[in-house]
Structures are given as structure tokens and as C-alpha cells.
């Protein structure tokens, strides 16, 4: 199967090509073709997974060297794909969840006139994402990395006739580019240090021998540069500002790119390069702190949002923060478990939010929803499953993933981190129950009657709900160490569990009790009708402002970057206007003035000219005579 690996990304690429050139003529068939191709890629990935599973655990690597991409002196990069437990897990998530979201989008984008183009971009995104996760070297990974950034830009700005969408797309592109630039430097440094960019050559020897020749300072720099790229792509502090705005894109895009797959690329990158991060202890600590701060920050910001999609966007950021937190503790299999489960339930949540938008004519403000349970009972069930899973209610997927990560903080002896993570988990449960209760429960705050989404949109949701319910048990149940963890162990190594200050049962009890309490509190505030939450912004304008504006980070960046930048641009334009254009205009004006003086001697009288000739001739003769 290894030699068929190239076909996995090639299928969606073919779809993108066909639809970019013939999308207009395909009409509604475009969506079905796109979905079928991604599903075919998924089937192929499953076949490769079975192939991997049939091998002994330590030898589960398939490399498909397609062709030599570029060679210059000692520098040589191939287009080569690598299937190992880590990349195949990502591939299955991308293609599996991707196919379901494609299927959903057929119904969601039905009335859009540019549906062909939409599915072309979606397929192109899946292609680049697969290149990213299947790449066998950093440069090919970077190609995919930039490609998904491009598709993200195209899809956020899909409704580019809305100025907000166009500027959100630009913001996402520019913000992630800051991280990408750092990441490219990191890749260059990897080549300088190791003389190669192949994962096999860069990472494997390091993993085997601990006596590394380059200094740990080099690894710290490389790791931090790679982390900057990961932070940009995964919308972590301080480059997170683009993600909430990215919700301007169509909802399936938010689900696929800005929740389930692309934004987790940063987590994948760090896990893939974990050998480098481990050689520099500092970098791992940075990852841990960035993740934990991001998780809590985004949880607080999410509570302040009234736009259902923005609330979900901050929740995505918070969840990815948890993944980074796990990676920072060297708990890679926990991070991957959360990544996979998060892909299930966050896609479910976003697509259900899409149902709400679809049913309410694109209303996104939760203050004008409420009581939708009556109109959309099925969607309410989906959202409930997704929200409770994120909240960490057993036995849903989110419980296994989050509980393991929070618990690991305790068993690895990081008490303060455990405390903060527990607070973060509590707030997660609070902020995700909030849209559930605001939108589907409580008093009705709109005159419109919502209509339930058609079966074509419900079918993928049912599958995602099934994955959300069962995924955690199948992948994460601790019985034999967790299936996913065992599968990933050859790549990421086994996590070192220690003794915690509490028993496992005690830790689980704490997190479950807190999750249930958070859901109950959320119900009491936002659905019971006993708390006047709508008056909160007027009673506590300061606090509400801090929360709803996500601690004014955008304003801060405007002061730090935007205003100085604009000021500098103004200086430059005035230099251009006054000095450069000024000089040119001044010369032109002087010539003009001169040309208004010169005609005054042209009176038009022939005899005046004749006198001029005469005087000139006399003067010439006198001059010649004087010269002798």
C-alpha cells in the first residue's frame, strides 16, 4: 500500500483542478464529486491504516518517495510522503471529518451561485492539509502549511462582497504569515544544523542517541521558531486574533478549517518535531505556558461573546490551548486524543450552529435566539451532545481526552499547572454550555420560527454525533493504556506517568463534579430565567467589555502595530507627495510659468520680427568686426 500513498492527496487535488476549471458547468454535482473524492481518500487512508496495523509496532512506517523535487549542491528535497501512526491518524481525521463536512456543505451551500468554486477551494484545502500531514520533510510540510493558509484566506473571504469577510480574510493571512516567516527561518536553521530536511534524518538519530552534537541553544532557537509558526496557525497567544474574525467564512469552512483540521496543524507540527523540543527543555516549557494561558484566556473571552460562531471560535482556541498544554508536558498521545476527539465534537458543534444559521436566515446573535429546541429538536440534540462532550461529561469523547490531560498534569507532579488546567476545564464546561442554553433553551427572543435542516445536512451530523459519543471510549479508554496512545507510542514514545497527590478515581471525580457543576451553573444563569443575564453588560460594563472584546487585544495591537504603521505610512506618503512629486511638479510649474512669459514677445507683427532679424544681423556683424 505504501506506493499508493501519493494517491491520498492526489484525489482531492484532482477534484480541485476539475472544479476550478469546470465548476460552473457542474452545478450541484460539484459537491457530490468533491465529497466522493475526499471519501475515497478516506477509504484509501483506512486501507493504509490496516496495512500499518498488520506490521510489527516498531516498523510501522511507509515512505512513498514520489520524485526529486529540487536539488542544489548538498541541498536536496524530495516530494515524499510518510505514513506512520501519527500522520495516518491526522490523515484519517482530515479525510474522515472532511468528507462529512463536505457532505454537509452540499446542503448548506445549495443556494450559493458559486458552489463549484466553493468545493474547489474545499478540495484544494484537503489536498494541502494532506500534504502537510503526510509530508516526509519540513519543506513539503511547509508547502502544505502555506497552502492551507491560502485556502483559509480564500474560504474566509468566500463572500468577498462583504467588506468584513474580505478584511477578515486579509487579517487571517497576514497574522499567520508572521508565524510562517519565523517557521521558515526555523526550517532553514534545521537544514544548517542537520544538513537535511527529511524527518527520517533530522528526527530519528536524535531520538535514538541522546548525545547530540549541536548545542541545546540551537535546539531552543529552532523549536521556538517552529513554535511561532504553530502558534500562528493554531491561533494561540499572541497570534490568535485572526481566528474569531475568520468566522466570516461559510460555516462548513469554520467547521473544517477553523475548528477540526487546519488549526490543529500547529499541534501536529510540535508533536512531529517533539524530539527537537525535548532537546531544548525551555521550548517545551514555553509550549506549556502558551497553551495553558491560551486555554484560560480564550475560555474567558468565549463567555463574553454573543455571536454563536465567535463563541465557538474562542472555544476552539481554548481547546487547542489544552492540546499545547499537553504537548508541553510531553503528553503527546493525550494531545493527539484531544485533537481527534475535538475534531469530532467541534465539527459537530459548528455544523449544528450552521443548522441554526440556516434555519434563522443567518442570524448569529444568541440574544435573538432562545428556545430553538422547540423548532429544531434534532439540532438541539446534536448541539447538546457536542457541548456536553466538550464540557467533559462522561462517557462522551471530550471527557476522556480532557480528563487525561488534566489528570496527567497531576500525575506528572505539576500541581500549579493542574490547578490552572482544572480551572480552565471548569470554564470550558461553562462557556460551551452557554450557547447551548442561550440558543436552544430558555425564553424565546425572536419572532421568527426556525426550520429544521434537511436530512442531507442531518446525516453527517448523526455520524459526527456517533463519533462524539463513541470515539472516546474506542480510542481513549484507559483499560489497556488507551488504543490511540498504544498506536502512537512508536512515534511519540510513552508518557511517563507518576504518582499524583490523589488517586486516579479522585482526580476523575473532581473533574466530573466540576463539569456537571459548570453545566448546572450555566443552566441557572442562561436558561432558568432566574438570572437577568441581559442586564449584565449594563451592570458591569467594565467586566463585560473586557470579556466581549477578548481583553482588548485587538485594540492593543491596533495601538502597537496598526497606528504606528499608519503613522509611518502617512509620513512616507507626505514625503512622496511633497518631496518626490513636489520636485517633479515644481519643475513642471516653472516650465509652465516660463512658457507664459515667452509668448509675450510673439506679437504677431511681421515687421517686429524683421526688426529683430536686422538688429541680430547688425549685432552679429559688430561682434565679428570687434573680434577682428
Amino acid at each position, binding site marked *: 500500500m505504501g506506493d499508493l500513498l501519493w494517491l491520498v492527496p492526489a484525489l482531492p487535488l484532482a477534484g480541485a483542478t476539475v472544479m476550478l476549471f469546470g465548476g460552473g458547468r457542474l452545478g450541484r454535482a460539484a459537491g457530490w464529486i468533491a465529497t466522493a473524492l475526499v471519501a475515497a481518500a478516506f477509504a484509501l487512508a483506512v486501507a493504509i491504516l490496516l496495512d500499518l496495523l498488520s506490521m510489527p509496532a516498531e516498523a510501522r512506517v511507509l515512505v512513498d518517495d514520489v520524485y526529486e523535487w529540487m536539488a542544489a549542491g548538498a541541498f536536496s528535497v524530495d516530494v515524499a510522503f510518510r505514513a506512520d501512526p501519527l500522520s495516518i491518524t491526522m490523515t484519517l481525521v482530515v479525510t474522515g471529518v472532511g468528507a462529512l463536512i463536505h457532505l454537509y456543505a452540499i446542503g448548506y451551500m445549495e443556494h450559493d451561485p458559486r458552489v463549484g468554486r466553493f468545493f474547489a477551494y474545499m478540495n484544494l484545502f484537503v489536498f494541502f492539509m494532506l500534504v502537510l500531514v503526510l509530508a516526509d520533510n519540513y519543506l513539503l510540510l511547509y508547502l502544505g502549511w502555506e497552502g492551507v493558509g491560502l485556502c483559509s484566506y480564500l474560504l474566509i473571504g468566500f463572500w468577498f462582497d462583504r467588506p468584513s469577510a474580505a478584511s477578515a480574510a486579509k487579517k487571517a493571512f497576514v497574522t499567520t504569515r508572521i508565524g510562517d516567516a519565523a517557521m521558515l527561518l526555523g526550517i532553514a536553521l534545521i537544514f544548517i544544523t542537520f544538513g537535511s530536511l527529511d524527518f527520517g534524518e533530522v528526527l530519528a538519530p536524535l531520538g535514538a542517541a541522546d548525545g547530540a552534537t549541536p548545542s541545546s541553544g540551537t535546539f531552543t532557537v529552532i523549536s521556538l521558531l517552529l513554535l511561532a509558526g504553530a502558534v500562528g496557525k493554531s491561533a494561540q497567544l499572541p497570534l490568535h486574533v485572526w481566528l474569531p474574525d475568520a468566522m466570516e467564512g461559510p460555516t462548513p469552512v469554520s467547521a473544517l478549517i477553523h475548528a477540526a483540521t487546519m488549526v490543529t496543524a500547529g499541534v501536529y507540527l510540535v508533536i512531529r518535531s517533539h524530539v527537537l523540543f525535548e532537546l531544548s527543555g525551555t521550548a517545551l516549557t514555553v509550549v506549556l505556558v502558551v497553551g495553558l494561558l491560551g486555554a484560560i484566556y480564550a475560555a474567558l473571552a468565549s463567555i463574553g461573546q454573543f455571536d454563536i460562531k465567535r463563541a465557538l471560535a474562542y472555544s476552539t482556541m481554548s481547546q487547542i490551548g489544552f492540546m499545547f498544554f499537553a504537548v508541553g508536558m510531553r503528553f503527546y498521545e493525550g494531545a493527539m486524543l484531544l485533537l481527534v476527539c475535538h475534531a469530532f465534537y467541534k465539527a459537530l458543534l459548528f455544523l449544528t450552529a450552521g443548522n441554526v444559521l440556516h434555519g434563522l436566515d443567518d442570524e448569529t446573535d444568541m440574544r435573538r435566539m432562545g428556545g430553538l429546541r422547540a423548532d429544531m429538536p434534532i439540532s438541539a440534540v446534536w448541539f447538546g451532545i457536542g457541548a456536553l462532550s466538550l464540557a467533559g461529561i462522561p462517557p462522551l469523547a471530550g471527557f476522556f481526552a480532557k480528563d487525561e490531560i488534566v489528570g496527567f498534569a497531576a500525575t506528572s507532579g505539576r500541581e500549579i499547572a493542574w490547578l490552572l488546567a482544572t480551572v480552565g476545564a471548569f470554564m470550558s464546561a461553562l462557556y460551551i454550555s452557554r450557547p447551548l442554553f442561550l440558543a436552544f433553551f430558555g425564553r424565546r427572543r425572536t419572532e421568527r420560527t426556525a426550520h429544521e435542516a434537511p436530512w442531507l445536512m442531518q446525516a453527517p451530523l448523526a455520524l459526527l454525533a456517533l463519533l462524539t459519543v463513541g470515539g472516546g471510549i474506542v480510542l481513549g479508554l484507559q483499560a489497556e493504556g488507551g488504543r490511540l496512545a498504544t498506536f502512537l507510542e512508536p512515534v511519540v514514545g510513552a508518557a511517563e506517568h507518576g504518582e499524583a497527590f490523589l488517586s486516579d478515581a479522585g482526580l476523575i471525580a473532581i473533574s466530573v463534579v466540576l463539569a456537571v457543576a459548570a453545566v448546572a451553573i450555566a443552566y441557572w444563569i442562561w436558561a432558568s430565567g432566574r438570572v437577568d443575564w441581559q442586564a449584565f453588560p449594563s451592570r458591569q460594563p467594565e467586566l463585560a467589555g473586557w470579556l466581549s472584546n477578548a481583553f482588548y487585544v485587538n485594540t492593543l495591537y491596533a495601538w502597537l502595530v496598526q497606528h504606528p504603521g499608519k503613522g509611518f505610512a502617512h509620513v512616507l506618503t507626505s514625503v512622496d507627495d511633497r518631496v518626490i512629486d513636489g520636485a517633479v511638479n515644481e519643475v513642471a510649474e516653472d516650465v509652465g510659468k516660463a512658457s507664459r512669459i*515667452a509668448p*509675450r*514677445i*510673439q*506679437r504677431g*507683427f*511681421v515687421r517686429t520680427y524683421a526688426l529683430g532679424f*536686422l538688429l541680430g544681423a547688425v549685432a552679429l556683424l559688430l561682434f565679428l568686426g570687434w573680434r577682428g
Partner: protein
Amino acid sequence: MSTPVSYFLVVSAMLFAIGTVGVLVRRNALVIFMSVELQLNAVNLALVAFSRLHGNLNGQVLAFFSMVVAAAEVVVGLAIIVTVYRRRQSASVDDLTVLRG
């Protein structure tokens, strides 16, 4: 011997001066034109006189050239003056100031 060259030159200079004054003071285009002819002929006279003085034919040849050119110029010039007169019912050069800057 024959007449000294200076005599011819004096006559030539006088003719040229008369022609010049004519060009400068007269308004009628036709008269100005005639004055220009007078200047040309004054120069021709000087050329022939110098030719005689130096004993070669260069000056005379040049005088012929100048006559031919003058003839051609008269044809064009007179045609222009006649056309202008037909158009404007006037041959006064002071009326022709369309090319004033």
C-alpha cells in the same frame, strides 16, 4: 582702368539699406515683398562685384543661384499674398497677427 569696386559696394549698400527700411516701415505686404527683392539684388550686386575683384567666377555663380531661388520664392510668396488678400480683403501685414503668442 575700370570703375573701382568700392563704387559698386556703395551702390549695393544703399540698395540694401533702402530695401531694409522698406521692409521695416511699409505695411503693404506687396511692397515689403518688393523691398525684400531689392535687398536680394543688392546682395547679388555685391557678389558680382567681389567676383570681379577676386578674378574668379564663384561670386557670379552664387548670384545666379540666388536669382533662381528668389524667382522660386517670388512665385510662392506672391501666391500667398494673393490668397491672403482674397480672404481678408487686405494686404496689410499688421492685420496678419493670428500667430501671436
